[in-house]
């Protein structure tokens, strides 16, 4: 349908019904499948957590995989459901380029948080003793420690 009220819009996107239905169906299935894979990985991480074997590195890898899958989901939602992919390139760039700030934003602040933890573990022994989770079956330090400070922050 034309938009006669909007002369500033030079051309309109025309997609026929069959093509549109096919695309929406495909994207819906894709989003559902990615979500199911994410849930499967989430449950797998849960079983890894429960086992006594130290699999921290593997868990980290799976968490990274889930992040990538989520970005794929976000791409499909924005480009197909929100039709950003159908807009002209200049328009897309005014939205996407500012969002690049997130690349620095995420890395800088997570690095900052991690650095704060390391500094406190080095110089604030009270923090370290009250918040560091005790390993299972490790019988060296077994005095009952009140945990009232554990959530400090």
């Amino acid at each position, binding site marked *: *349908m034309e938009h*006669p009220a909007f002369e500033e819009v030079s051309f309109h996107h025309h997609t026929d019904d069959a093509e549109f239905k096919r695309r929406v169906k495909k994207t819906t299935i894709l989003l559902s499948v990615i979500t199911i894979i994410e849930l499967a990985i989430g*449950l797998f*991480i849960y079983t890894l957590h429960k086992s006594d074997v130290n699999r921290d590195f593997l868990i980290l890898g799976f968490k990274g995989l889930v992040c990538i899958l989520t970005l794929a989901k976000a791409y499909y939602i924005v480009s197909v*459901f929100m039709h950003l992919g159908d807009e002209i390139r200049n328009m897309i760039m005014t939205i996407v380029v500012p969002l690049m700030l997130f690349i620095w934003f995420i890395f800088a602040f997570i690095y900052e948080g991690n650095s704060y933890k390391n500094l406190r573990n080095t110089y604030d022994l009270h923090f370290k003793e009250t918040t560091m989770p005790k390993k299972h079956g490790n019988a060296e330090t077994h005095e009952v420690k009140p945990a009232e400070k554990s959530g400090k922050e």
Partner: protein
Amino acid sequence: MSTQATTVHQTKWWSGGKSPFNMEYGKLMMWYFLMSDAFTFGAFLISYGSIRFSQNFWPDPNVVFNAFPGAGHANLPLAFVSVMTFILIISSVTMVLAVHAGHKGDKQGVIKWMIWTIIGGLAFLGCQAWEWHHLITGEHAVLVDGKIEMIGQNMRGNPWGAVVNGPEVTAALTNTSHETLMSLMHSANASVSHEKIAAMSDAELRAALSTAELHVREKGPVAFGGYFYGITGFHGFHVFSGVIINIVMLIMTQKNVFQNKGHYLMIEKAGLYWHFVDLVWVFVFLCFYLI
């Protein structure tokens, strides 16, 4: 200057009279609003991330979010939140269909799909209300000052800290109050009736509990609750306002406002907002439930 002039001549996008982005003003501004909103949510999530990285211990989401309505104490990690995620994805799809019906000027189609989208939004809000209620009222055994207490999520802490070892639990049982011992006994051994538990003395309860498998934890980081309720609440507020916007759009459609205007661009803008809410949930789901 000359190169600029030739560009203008070639594309004519910037010579005035038309949108250089080939987009109606309101829709363009909706996009910029959503971009700024993305930064708001992004800042919240990144601040959550940096605090999480600054802690030695952080609760495992699969331990916290393991309940399902009507399933009692069954351990079902990720089950309920996956229902919520699918509700939101499906309501996003019905919104796409509403926008498409609007493109064709199909009033009945717009009404039908808008109603489904609103139902999806309300269902999501209902799920979130249940989840919050469950997390706040559900009490768990926590080691506090050398004794065990049954606490739920509150402003000062949450019951999802690190697991306490067996010897410490046994030591803590001696300081634990009668009422807590009774509720511990009830949760550890559901087959024993309330009357039987009420008749037991403290010593009997302690003896029975010292052999039972108790899941006693320390208090979890306060920031966990703050960020969880803050960010899911802010997202829930977006869902709520999205539902209100969709209801207004539905009423306007029914009153032929868009039919008389000759276009359904307002549905498109409401649709953008609704998809954005779905998009944010994808990231909230990632940050709080999956990793």
